[in-house]
C-alpha cells in the first residue's frame, strides 16, 4: 500500500512538474504584459506536432527537438507577441483574452487540418529500475528531473542575474523600469521567448504519456491555468507549487476515486482555493482602499 502510494506520488509529481512548466509561463506572461494566455495549452501541442513532423521528415530526434524549439520561439514567442498581444493589449484584457482563445482554436484546427485527428506516439525513454518493490520508469524520472531543473534554472535566472532582475522590475513596475533605462520592451519579448521555451519543454515531457493529439491543449491549459491560480498567479514559485500539488492530487483522485472525475480535480481545487484562500498557496492577500 505504502509503495503503491509512493509510485502514485512519483507519477503525480512528474505530471505536476509539466503543469508547473506551463503554469510558470502563464505567470510570467501575466507579470510582464498582463496577458492571460488562454491558448497556453494549445501552445504545448504545437511544438509536439512540429517535432513529430520534423522527425517524420527525416531529421534525427535531437535536430527535430531543436527545430521544434526554434519554431516555438518564432511562432509562439515573437509572432504571438508582435502580431497578437501588442495590437490587442491596448484594447484591454478581455479582448486580448478572447483573441487568445481564438488563437487556441486556430492552432487546434490548424494542426487537425495538417496532421488529422489521430493520436501520434511521441519518442520516450524506455525501461526503468527497481526501487524496493517498485518499478520506476526512466521516463518519469526524466520528466520530473528535467522539469525541476528547468524551473530551478529559471528561478536562478530571475533571482540571480542582472537580466532576471530587470525582468522582475519590468513585471513589478514597468513605468519606473522604463524611466530607469531598463529595456522594458526587450524584457517583455524575452518573457514571451521564455514562455515558448517552457511550453516546448512541457511538450517534450508530457507528450510520451498522453500521445500527441490536436485537442490535447484544452485539458493541459485548464490544468496549468488552475495550477497558476492555486499557486497565487503572480508568483513563479506559486505556479510551481500549484502544478506539483495538482499533478499529485489528480493522480491520487484517479486511483482512489472514480476515474471519470479525474478531469474535475483541477476545477474542484480551483473552487476551493477561490473560496477559502483566494490569494493562492504563495500569494499575498492585498487590500483595496475604497
Amino acid at each position, binding site marked *: 500500500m505504502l509503495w503503491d502510494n509512493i509510485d502514485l506520488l512519483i507519477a503525480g509529481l512528474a505530471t505536476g512538474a509539466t503543469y508547473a512548466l506551463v503554469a510558470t509561463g502563464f505567470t510570467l506572461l501575466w507579470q510582464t504584459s498582463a496577458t492571460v494566455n488562454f491558448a497556453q495549452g494549445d501552445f504545448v501541442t504545437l511544438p509536439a506536432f512540429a517535432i513529430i513532423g520534423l522527425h517524420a521528415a527525416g531529421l534525427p530526434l535531437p535536430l527535430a527537438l531543436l527545430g521544434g524549439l526554434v519554431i516555438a520561439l518564432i511562432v509562439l514567442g515573437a509572432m504571438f507577441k508582435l502580431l497578437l498581444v501588442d495590437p490587442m493589449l491596448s484594447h484591454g484584457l478581455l479582448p486580448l483574452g478572447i483573441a487568445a482563445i481564438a488563437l487556441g482554436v486556430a492552432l487546434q484546427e490548424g494542426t487537425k487540418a495538417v496532421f488529422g485527428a489521430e493520436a501520434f506516439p511521441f519518442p520516450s525513454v524506455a525501461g526503468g529500475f527497481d526501487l524496493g518493490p517498485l518499478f520506476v520508469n526512466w521516463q518519469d524520472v526524466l520528466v520530473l528531473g528535467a522539469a525541476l531543473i528547468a524551473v530551478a534554472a529559471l528561478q536562478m535566472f530571475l533571482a*540571480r*542575474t*542582472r*537580466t532576471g*532582475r*530587470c525582468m*522582475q*522590475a519590468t513585471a*513589478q*513596475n514597468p*513605468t*519606473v*523600469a*522604463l*524611466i*530607469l*533605462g*531598463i529595456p522594458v520592451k526587450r524584457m517583455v519579448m524575452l518573457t514571451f521567448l521564455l514562455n515558448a521555451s517552457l511550453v516546448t519543454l512541457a511538450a517534450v515531457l508530457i507528450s510520451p504519456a498522453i500521445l500527441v493529439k490536436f485537442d490535447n491543449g484544452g485539458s493541459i491549459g485548464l490544468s496549468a491555468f488552475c495550477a497558476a491560480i492555486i499557486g497565487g498567479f503572480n508568483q513563479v514559485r506559486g505556479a510551481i507549487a500549484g502544478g506539483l500539488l495538482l499533478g499529485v492530487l489528480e493522480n491520487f483522485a484517479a486511483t482512489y476515486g472514480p476515474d471519470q472525475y479525474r478531469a474535475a480535480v483541477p476545477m474542484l481545487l480551483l473552487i476551493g482555493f477561490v473560496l477559502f484562500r483566494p490569494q493562492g498557496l504563495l500569494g499575498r492577500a492585498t487590500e483595496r482602499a475604497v
Partner: protein
Amino acid sequence: MTPLLQAHDLRRHFGGVQAVNGISVTVNAGEILGVIGPNGSGKSTLFNCLLGQIAPSGGQVLLDGRDVTGWRPCDLNRLGVSRTFQLLQVFPQLSVLENLILAGQEHVGSRIGRLFGPRDAGLTASAERMLARFRLQPLAHARAGGLSYGQQKLLDIAMAFMAGPRLVLLDEPAGGVNLTMLGGLRDLLRAMNEEQGATFVVIEHNMDFVMSLSHRVICIAEGRIIADGPPAEVREDARVIESYLGT
C-alpha cells in the same frame, strides 16, 4: 552661463482642459527650485512634460541648451535627469538594496557588459553608501514593499540619486513622511545640493519644508506661473495668498 533646464511656453491640454498653459521657467545648475500651487494646478503635468512622460502639446524643453522636447524618460535619465513620484514607485518584491542597484545599473558599462557583467553591476558599495546616507542600512535586505510609507519614500528618493544625476525632480517628497524624518530629509537634500552640486526641482505642499529648502519658488495656478521669486517674497505675494495659501 546656459541654464541647466529651460522650458519655453510649455503647453499641454487634455481635451478642453489646459493643464499647462504657456509655462516658461529656467533652472540653473546648483539651484533648488520649489514648485507650489493648489491641487490640479498643473504641477505634476509640468513635471511629466519636462521628463517626456507626456508629450507637450506645444513649447520647448531645453537641457543644457539642447532641445529635448518629447524625449523619452529613459533617454533623459541617461543625460542625468531623474525623478521621484507623488505616489510611491518602488519595486515592491525586490529588496531595498536591489531597488537601489536597479536604479543605477543601466548607467554602468556597455550594452554587452550589462548582459554579461557582474550581477550587481559593481554598484553594491555605492548602494550601501546611499543606504547609510538615507539611514536605511538595517533594511538593506528587506522587501521594499514591506517598508513603512515613509521608509519607501526615502528609498524612492535614494533611488533617484543612484545614477549620480545632475537634475532631480522631486514630486512631493515630504508627503506622508513623519515630522522626525522630515527635518532629516531636508538636511539631506540640502547636503546633496551643497556637496554634490545636485540641482532640484521640488513640488511640495508642505510650505515650511519647501520654503526652507528652496532657493527660489514658483507658484502655479490654472496652468500658469503666477509668482516667481525668493521663498519669502512668493509667500507674501497677494496672488499666491489668494489662489493657494489663503489668509
